[in-house]
């Protein structure tokens, strides 16, 4: 194919012999207007669409305080696992969901509450009274009463949940307070 005439639409600068580049020809104006409109429509629909898709990642999860028992039900220095049920929203579905945590009583006003999932790969560990340690069955992770790693693969100490005592009851919020 032999091309003799320059193709005007390839340059956007108007038909051959038209005004010099810098002047706003009719063709140039229209082509810019079309791109501007396309960009505008793309932005007006595209941006909301992106936010629409990633919005769940932008929302911080609101945790509430959950009553997990009377403070008299715990013995100082003796970890106890508590199970409780919370209503959790999974998209548009709201379902009861079984949860648990490990509670260590220091005194009537001071408690430490651990996330029940091992910091290695999330297995449920448990307290072994004979050894005075938390043992994780999955890969032999070992933690002491303070949640520090004694041995095994867990990379960091047990996660602690926020807690407070109110009217003789222990309240827990699933919010990690030690990093």
């Amino acid at each position, binding site marked *: 194919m032999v091309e003799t005439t320059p193709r005007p639409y390839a340059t956007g600068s108007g038909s051959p012999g038209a005004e010099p580049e810098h002047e706003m020809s009719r063709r140039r104006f229209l082509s810019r207007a079309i791109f501007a409109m396309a960009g505008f429509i793309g932005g007006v629909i595209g941006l909301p669409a992106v936010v629409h*898709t*990633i919005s*769940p*990642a932008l*929302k911080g*999860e609101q945790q509430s305080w959950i009553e997990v028992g009377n403070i008299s039900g715990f013995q100082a220095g003796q970890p106890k696992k508590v199970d409780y049920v919370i209503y959790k929203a*999974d*998209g*548009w*579905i709201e379902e009861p969901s079984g949860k648990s945590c490990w509670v260590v009583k220091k005194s009537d006003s001071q408690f430490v509450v651990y996330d029940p999932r091992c910091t290695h790969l999330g297995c449920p560990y448990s307290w072994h009274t004979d050894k005075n340690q938390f043992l994780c069955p999955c890969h032999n992770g070992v933690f002491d009463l303070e949640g520090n790693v004694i041995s095994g693969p867990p990379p960091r100490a047990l996660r602690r949940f926020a807690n407070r005592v109110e009217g003789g009851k222990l309240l827990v919020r699933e919010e990690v307070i030690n990093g």
Partner: protein
Amino acid sequence: MVKVLDWLDERLSIKPFFEHLLFRKMPKGINWWWTFGSATLFLLIMQLTTGMFLAIYYSASPDHAWDSIRFIESEVTFGTLIRGIHHWGSSGMVILVLAHMLRVFFMGAYKYPRETTWIVGVVLLTLVLGFGFTGYLLPWDEKAYWATVVGTNMAEQAPLIGNFVLKVLRGGADLGAVTLTRFYAFHVLFLPAIALPLVSVHLFMVVKQGISGPAKKK
């Protein structure tokens, strides 16, 4: 048939186009190794077809996903067949696309002037893996669930943005109803919408440049 085609050709003169497309000259010495791309294309079409028919019964909700699959397997006539083809076809796609890529690599067919075909091919490879990853969750059984927990956890290992990517993938901190619907949307709408134009571009480039022959002995 011939009449219909002639009638069409008289108006559109499409014969040269199809002749060019279907009766292309091939280099000497090509063999079965050159068929992996076409085999992948064939499986892709199979996946699209069987997938559309699966979507007739499938329900992407945690309450119903597994039951709808069970329904396809046990109640729908030929449901097992359609699902079976789609299930095995997905593994076949991955194997064939890798075989295709390896043949292109080891024969140096990605070299000038076919770099663009290779680059589009790399994107297609990730799309094929994306189909596999999103499709795996859809039966919503234990295996699907935990595989996706682990798969999305891997994304979290990325520095800085990891947790954000994880939440975008899951549609929240945990795997749930929102994860299932978005994986379904990606699997049946987003990925095909991206893959089909790219496959067309890939094939356009293959046809336009002609396929590369075997390397000549020196």
